[in-house]
């Protein structure tokens, strides 16, 4: 192909704008590489650089400000055959900085062309993340209090595998863009340019001055040896391929029959680290083994290894509606902070509610049937108190029985863990 430019939609830039040069440079690069148009997509940001997608006869996606790299990543992951080229200005660089960093770190095979013209052209020449401190721009004095960033330096520290920088007027631009596209991995090419509509009106800037800026900045010419590593998509696919087993749903066969079973509400009050959720799970499995419907709500803090852990379980022969606890039939009080979390329920408990209280735990006054157990006397560690309590429940036939509990443990654990769990249970039965 001689040109990928869309003849019906010529470039619309201000006279002298460097974007025009970069449009032609990109076209020459595409011609040089002879990229198939239908396997090439230009993803553009917002602003003057965001017009690029309209100039070329390739696939195009023009999204929202600063986020071009996010669409580009989605496209490339979904279709690894695509050549994905992103154009973005210094505005998009600022607002979408997180995505630039993430792209550098990931090293997905995308090419980012940054069209740095030192200001927001479209909105009136306001200062951007690359505006020199002493420039006179449309932001009054604001840029005088900040410094510009060097995206190439940032990209290098963020792990970019290919970084290049040149003037948009550099004759080598097409070749440089082509090399960036050819690089397998994330490539950044920062072009410096003149915004003749805004920036250069008050800030003298010429192609020669741009060349001087390039000379004054640390040189960047492509591959960054120290960041060299496999391309993200390849790496991702290799890792994902090792995941072969689809996790099927936990499904529990009915294994025992219960006559006249009434809905049970079990509340386990404990602390993080006491395996409260696992105990709740086992109670649910016990119900499922008897063909019952179950539901379980857990309440814990966002802190993982501290604080209360509360599990609330319903076991019912009927389909469960409201999944909260209204009238508990069993309460396991295994830690003070767990009890504190639900202290209001104790006054409401009925005389036939079974409350198992560990000896060290204090509970509010209640009419319920309270049984105190000193698990330390049974040489049961704190992390097994909840499990041991299930043994007590089974023995007293409160909500579950021994057959249900045995089936539940068998379904929930592997043989080894099952036998260890049964040892604890047997101490209580």
């Amino acid at each position, binding site marked *: 192909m001689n040109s990928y430019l869309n003849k019906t939609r010529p470039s619309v830039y201000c006279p002298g704008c460097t974007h025009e040069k970069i449009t032609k440079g990109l076209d020459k690069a595409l011609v040089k590489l002879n990229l198939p148009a*239908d*396997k090439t*997509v230009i993803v553009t940001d917002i602003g003057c650089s965001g017009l690029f*997608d*309209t100039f070329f006869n390739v*696939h*195009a*996606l*023009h*999204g*929202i400000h600063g*986020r071009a790299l*996010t*669409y*580009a*990543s*989605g*496209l*490339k*992951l*979904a*279709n690894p*055959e*695509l050549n994905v080229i992103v154009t973005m200005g210094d505005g998009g660089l600022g607002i979408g900085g*997180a*995505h630039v*960093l*993430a792209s550098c770190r990931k090293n997905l095979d995308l090419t980012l062309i940054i069209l740095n013209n030192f200001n927001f052209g479209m909105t009136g020449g306001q200062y951007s993340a690359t505006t020199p401190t002493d420039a006179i721009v449309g932001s009054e004095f604001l840029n005088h209090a900040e410094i510009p960033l060097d995206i190439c330096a940032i990209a290098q520290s963020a792990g970019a595998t290919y970084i290049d920088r040149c003037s948009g007027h550099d004759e080598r631009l097409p070749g440089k863009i082509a090399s960036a596209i050819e690089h397998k991995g994330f490539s950044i090419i920062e072009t410096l340019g003149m915004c003749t509509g805004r920036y250069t009106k008050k800030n003298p800037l010429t192609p020669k001055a741009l060349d001087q800026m390039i000379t004054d900045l640390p040189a960047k010419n492509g591959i960054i040896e120290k960041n060299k590593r496999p391309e993200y998509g390849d790496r*991702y696919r290799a890792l*994902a391929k090792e*995941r*072969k*087993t689809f*996790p099927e*749903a*936990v*499904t*529990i*066969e*009915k294994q025992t029959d219960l006559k006249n079973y009434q809905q049970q509400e079990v509340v386990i009050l404990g602390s993080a680290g006491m395996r409260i959720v696992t105990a709740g*799970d086992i109670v*649910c*499995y016990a119900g*499922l083994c008897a*063909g*019952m*419907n*179950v*539901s*379980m*709500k857990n*309440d*814990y803090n*966002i802190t993982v290894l501290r604080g209360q852990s509360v599990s609330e379980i319903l076991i019912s022969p009927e389909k*469960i*509606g*409201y*999944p*909260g606890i*209204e009238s508990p039939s069993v309460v396991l009080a295994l830690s003070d902070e767990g009890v504190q979390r639900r202290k209001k329920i104790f006054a409401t408990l009925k005389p036939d509610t079974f409350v198992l209280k560990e000896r060290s735990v204090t509970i509010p006054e209640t009419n319920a049937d309270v049984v105190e157990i000193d698990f330390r006397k049974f040489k049961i560690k704190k992390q097994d108190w909840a499990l041991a309590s299930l043994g007590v429940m089974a023995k007293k036939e409160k909500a579950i029985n021994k057959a249900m509990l045995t089936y539940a443990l068998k379904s929930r654990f592997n043989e080894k863990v099952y036998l260890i769990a049964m040892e604890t249970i047997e101490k209580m039965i």
Partner: protein
Amino acid sequence: MALSFMEGNEALARGAIAAGCDFFAGYPITPATTIFNNMLNMLPPKGGICIQGEDEIASMGYCIGASMAGKKALTATSGPGISLYSEQLSFAIGSEIPLVIADVQRLGPSTGSATRGADSDIQFLRWGSTSGVPVIVLAPKDALDCYVLAVHAFNYAEEFRCPVFIASNKEIGMTRESFDLDSVTLPPIVERKMFSGDSYLPFEAEPNAAPPFLPIGGETLVRQTSSTHGPDGYITIDPDVIAQNQARLREKIHSARKRITLFEKDIKENSDTLIISYGVTARAVEDAGKTLESKGKPVSTLTLKTLWPVPEELLIETAKPFKRIVVIEMNLGQYVNEIKRVLCDKKIMFYGQMNGVLITPAKIMEVIENE
């Protein structure tokens, strides 16, 4: 019979897989994280892609890119993440990019309570994008619904080429419960209508339908843009073209609203009260209904599973014989405003609660009996 046991978030992920979802991008947030965890375990063995975005905005961007390449994409978040999704949502809505978004709601505003449920975002989901273009919001009441509605959500997203929300709740997403997975009948899978003619204009469509799709990366060149566009996908300032497109974005969903109205109702003869609810609250309402019936004071219940577009015909038709309409919500009154708007000639009572705990059947009975 063997029952399956899973939390709503896992059921939603399984529903997504059943619907053919092959791309997920998300950012961890309680109480939606386990959707991400499940997708991360389920997608790779099926050849799908699951990635973590650097933030919520990126996650949406990845999904948008993947969807434009032809994937069926899912993302999941909660209130703070939905807030960050907003601009990308407007892009997906206006540029007709199919997506499914699970919002496992938590108590807001803002950071609010990560582990406390509420139906915080019901109006935000509808209006949290620019221009007011209609969106589709489905509300599950339990894990089974999460499974089934995920399939509906993908079907609607594909058919209407739009983002579809599943307005779940911490109290559904993170509640584990049993249901008979094997006996569930899922709706037939709807695939994106592909373009098959000669000259493709990416946004050329029937006046009340989404345009046929071709992927970016296929043989035919495709344009996608967030700018106001005509059928050719190029920016336009032609008022007629703009007006037609705006009308079509509205019409494609509005004209199908009867068909996409999902609900359950339990109408009791001799009841003068209709309780309308949705989400996890509906379960307490249904329990309260049973107790009231056993006390000889039957009430009827309507559980909405499609919240947006508002099922206006269903509401009008169902409410017709009732003297009293009661709306119960796990917030301080969001959707009740729609019901008041539609049932403007009815007496509407409201009870809402926003304190991090479920509304109990007892509370609902108190509301019904004390009026």
